[in-house]
C-alpha cells in the first residue's frame, strides 16, 4: 500500500501547486481514474443538461430507467410557455429488449408520443446500453421523421463514449441538425444569439432585458427557454455571444462555419464581467446609439450594485474560498467575482477544464493556490484543511462534505432557484456568501467543536460539589 493515502499516484499530474516562478502545468481532459471517486458525470449527462431546456421538444431517453429517473426535472430552467421538457420520457428497456434489441420498442415509443402529443421535435438520447447492443438510433430516427413528418433527432450520448464534455458536443450536434437554412434578411437591428445559458431562475431573461434596453435583439437563447422554431431560425443572426464556454463554444464554431456567424465570449457573473460583457456586445454592434445606451445602463447599474456590495464587503474581508465547479470558464469567472468582493481563491478545480483555461487560472490566482482537475472528496478534504479555506463553491455532492468540514458553502449548480448572473445576480451572490460564511452556526463549531463538553469543566464541578 502506498504511503501517501491522499493523492493517488495516477492523480498526481492532475494536482498543481501554483508556483509563479516555475512554469508548471496540469494534466487535464483525460479519462477519470478508476476508483478515485471522481465528481464527474457521463456523456449522457452532458447532453441532457445542454439540450433539456428546449421547452417544447420531447426528450426521450432510450435505455433502462435509471438515466431517465435521475435526470427528471431536477434543474431550475424556466420556460415562458410550454413545459414538455420538464417530463422525462424513457423506453424503460427490460431484459428481453437488451437481448433482442430495443429498436422496436423505440419505434413504438415514438409512435405513442406522436399520437398523444404531436410534438415538432423529439430528441432521442442514446444511453450506455443501447450503444453496446447496437440499436440503430439514426436509422429509427430517420424512418420515424419521414413517417410522422416531424424531426426525430438522435443524440449520440452513450455514457461510456467519453465524458461529460463529449455530451455537450453531442447536444451541439443535435441543435445543429435542428437549424434550418439562412434566410435573406433585411433586418436592420443588431440581432444576436445568446449561447450557453440555461435560464436557471430566469437568468436568460435578466440578460435579455439588459440587451433589449440597449437596443440589441436576441434571436434565440440556447438553450434556456428556447423553442424548436427559434432554434431552427438560429442561423439568421449577426452574432453569437457565448456564456457557458465549455458547452457551447463548439456550437459557436460550427455555426461560424455553417452560417458565417462570428462569435464572442462573454460572462455575466459578477459586476465587472457583466459590465464588460454588455460593453463588448455594444461595441460589436458598431452602432453608436447602442453604445451610448450601454454606457448609460452600465453607469447606472454598476454604481447601484457596488453601493450594495460595499455594505457586505466589510464583513467578508480576509475570507478564503475553494472553488470546485464543472467548467473552466465558470471557475475563471468565479475567481474574478470573488476577487471583486475581496475574497481570494485558495483552491480552484474543475471537472472538465481545458489546458488554456488552467493556464488562465494559474495566471489569475496567487502563488500557493492549489489547482485541481477532476478532483475527489479525499483531495478536497485534504486541501481544504491545508489551505484553511472558509467557503467551498460546488454542487449538490460537495455540499455535505463542506458542512461536515465546518465550512460555508455556495451552491453554484443547475438546481439552484435564485439567479446568480447579471447585476441582480451579483447582489444575490454576495448576499449568499455573507449568509453562509457569517452564519452564527460556525461560532459554535469554532468555539467548542462537535464534542461539546470539555471533561475538565465537569471535573471542576465535581470537585466543587465535594
Amino acid at each position, binding site marked *: 500500500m502506498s504511503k501517501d493515502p491522499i493523492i493517488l499516484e495516477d492523480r498526481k499530474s492532475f494536482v498543481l501547486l501554483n508556483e509563479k516562478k516555475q512554469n508548471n502545468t496540469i494534466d487535464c481532459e483525460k479519462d477519470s481514474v478508476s476508483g478515485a471517486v471522481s465528481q464527474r458525470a457521463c456523456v449522457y449527462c452532458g447532453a441532457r443538461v445542454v439540450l433539456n431546456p428546449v421547452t417544447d421538444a420531447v426528450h426521450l431517453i432510450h435505455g433502462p430507467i435509471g438515466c431517465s429517473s435521475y435526470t427528471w426535472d431536477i434543474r431550475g430552467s424556466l420556460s415562458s410557455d410550454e413545459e414538455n421538457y420538464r417530463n422525462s420520457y424513457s423506453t424503460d428497456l427490460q431484459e428481453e429488449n437488451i437481448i433482442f434489441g430495443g429498436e422496436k420498442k423505440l419505434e413504438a415509443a415514438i409512435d405513442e408520443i406522436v399520437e398523444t402529443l404531436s410534438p415538432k421535435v423529439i430528441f432521442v438520447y442514446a444511453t450506455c446500453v443501447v450503444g453496446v447492443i447496437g440499436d440503430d438510433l439514426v436509422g429509427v430516427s430517420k424512418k420515424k421523421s419521414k413517417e410522422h413528418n416531424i424531426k426525430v433527432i438522435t443524440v449520440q450520448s452513450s455514457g461510456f463514449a467519453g465524458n461529460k464534455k463529449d455530451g455537450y458536443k453531442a447536444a451541439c450536434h443535435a441543435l445543429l441538425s435542428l437549424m434550418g437554412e439562412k434566410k435573406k434578411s433585411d433586418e436592420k437591428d443588431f440581432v444576436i444569439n445568446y449561447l450557453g445559458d440555461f435560464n436557471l431562475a430566469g437568468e436568460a431573461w435578466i440578460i435579455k432585458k439588459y440587451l433589449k434596453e440597449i437596443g440589441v435583439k436576441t434571436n434565440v437563447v440556447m438553450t434556456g427557454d428556447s423553442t424548436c422554431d427559434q432554434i431552427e431560425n438560429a442561423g439568421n443572426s449577426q452574432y453569437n455571444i457565448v456564456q457557458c464556454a465549455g458547452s457551447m463554444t463548439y456550437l459557436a464554431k460550427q455555426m461560424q462555419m455553417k452560417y458565417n456567424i462570428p462569435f464572442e465570449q462573454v460572462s455575466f457573473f459578477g459586476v465587472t464581467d457583466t459590465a464588460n460583457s454588455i460593453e463588448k456586445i455594444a461595441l460589436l454592434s458598431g452602432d453608436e446609439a447602442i453604445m451610448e445606451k450601454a454606457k448609460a445602463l452600465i453607469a447606472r447599474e454598476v454604481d447601484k450594485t457596488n453601493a450594495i456590495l460595499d455594505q457586505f464587503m466589510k464583513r467578508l474581508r480576509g475570507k478564503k474560498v475553494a472553488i470546485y465547479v464543472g467548467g473552466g470558464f465558470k471557475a475563471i469567472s468565479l475567481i474574478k467575482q470573488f476577487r471583486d468582493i475581496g475574497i481570494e481563491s485558495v483552491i480552484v478545480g474543475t471537472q472538465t477544464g481545458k489546458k488554456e483555461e488552467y493556464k488562465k487560472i494559474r495566471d489569475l490566482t496567487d502563488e500557493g493556490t492549489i489547482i485541481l482537475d477532476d478532483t475527489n472528496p479525499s483531495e478536497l478534504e485534504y486541501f481544504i484543511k491545508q489551505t484553511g479555506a472558509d467557503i467551498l463553491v460546488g454542487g*449538490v455532492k460537495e455540499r455535505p462534505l463542506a458542512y461536515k468540514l465546518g465550512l460555508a458553502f455556495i451552491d453554484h449548480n443547475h438546481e439552484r432557484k435564485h439567479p446568480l448572473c447579471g447585476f441582480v445576480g451579483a447582489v444575490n451572490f454576495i448576499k449568499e456568501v455573507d449568509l453562509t460564511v457569517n452564519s452564527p452556526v460556525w461560532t459554535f463549531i469554532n468555539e467548542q467543536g462537535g464534542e461539546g463538553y470539555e471533561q475538565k469543566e465537569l471535573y471542576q464541578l465535581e470537585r466543587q460539589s465535594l
Partner: protein
Amino acid sequence: MSKRNYTNLNVNPCKMCMPMGGSLAFKGIEKSMIIIHGSQGCSTYIRRHIAAHYNEPVDIASSSLTEEGTVYGGSSNLKKGLKNLIRLYQPSVIGVLTTCLAETIGEDIQGIIREFILEEDLEDKVHIIPVSTPGYQATQYEGYYYALRQMVENLAEEVAHNEYINIVVSDVTCEDIRELKRIASFFSDKIIILPDISDTLDAPYTSEYSKLLSGGTKINKIKLMGGARATVEIGALIKDAYSPGKYLEETYGVPLYKISVPIGLEYVDEFIKALSQITHKTIPKELELERGRMLDGMIDSHKYNGEGVGAIFGSPELNLAISSLCIENGLTPKLVMTGSKSKKLKEIIEEKAKRFHMETIVLEDSDFSTLQPMVKQCGINILIGSSDGKFVKEKVKVPLIRVGFPIHDQIGAQRKLNVGYKGSLRLLDEMTNTLMDLKHDDYRDRMYDDYYTPLLKA
C-alpha cells in the same frame, strides 16, 4: 387497472435502478465502500441522489469504464479501481455493483474479484462482495434486498446457535432504525440490524471528519446471522430470490418472520408480537402505553382523516405500510402507485381496504404520467410519497407529505420518524394537520363564496 398510459414508454418514472438500491444497502455496513462497475455517470447520479436526501457526504467509486473497457472488457479497470479505493479509504467491505453496461458486455465480476484478491493477497483483509444489479432487470427496491442477500451469502458462516435476532430492515429512515432498536431492546439486547444506516447516513458533527464512518452493521455480526434465533425481515412483499431472510432460513434453518414495515397499528403490533414470540417475553407496559397513546391520537383525528382521499406512491413496502396506516384511520388510499412490479401489493391493500368499505386503485409497474390525471379524477386531496411527487403537487395543486426516497426538496428526511406507535402517530398527525389546513386555510373565503354571494344575488 394496473398498466401505465403508455405501453412502450415510462413517463416521469416512479422507480430507480438496481445499483441505487444496492448502494443504499451497503451504506449501512461498517467501514464499507462501494464501487459501481460501469461508466462514470451512474455513480455520480446515485451519489447526488443519496447526498441530497441524507445531507451527508456520499463517496461511491466508479470503475469509470470508457470505450476501450467496453470493447475489451473492464477487468483491468475494475481491478485498478478496487486498488485505488482501498488505498484512499481502507474499507473492511467493498460492494461491487454492476451497471447495465457491465452486465451487457458480460463482465464476470465474481471471477475478476477472485483474481484480484489472489493477486493483491487480500484474503481476510477486505471482504469484496459482488452484486449483480443490471438496471434493466428490476428496480432499486429489488436491488436493495438483493445486495443484502449477497452480503449474507458472502459473509454469514456456519456458526453455533446464538441468542441474536436478525432484523432486516426496509427503506426506512435513520430515525426509524433508532426507534426499531429501542423497541427491540425491550425484548433482547442481542439484535443485529441489517443494514444500519442510523449513524452512517445521519452522522453527528464532530471536530474530526472521517470519510469512512464506523457505525453501521458490523461484519462479525453478519457472520453470526446464520446461527440466530430468528430473522425478522421487514419486507412483506419482496420475492424469495432477493430475500436475505429466505436465504438464512434455507441455508441455516433460521426461522423467518416476514413482516410489513411497522407503520400503522396492525403492522406495529405484528412487529412487536414477532419479537415477543421469538423471545418468549411479554410485551412491556411501556409499549402498551405507547399503543394506547396512538389509539387516543387516532380517535382525536379520525374525523379529519375521514375526509382524506390520498394518493400514495413509492416503493412497494412503504406503499403497503402507509396505505395500512391510512385505512386504519379512515383516510382512503384511493390511488396507490409503484414503479416496481408487485402483484402481492395489490392483493393485500385491496383486501384490507375492502374490510373497511374503501375502494382503492393499485397501480404497479406504473409512472407519474399515469397517476397525474387520476389524481384529479379521483378527488385526491393529499399526496403521500417521495419528492418525485412534487411535479404532481405543483401541477394538480394537492399537498404532498414526504415519505420514502428520495426527498431532495426538503431537509430532514433522515430524521423523520415513521415507524413504531410513536412514528405512526407522528406521520398520522402530519397528515391530519395537512388535511386540517386544507379545511381551514380558505374557510372564510369559501363560506363567503358558497353562501353569502348567492344571498346577494337572490
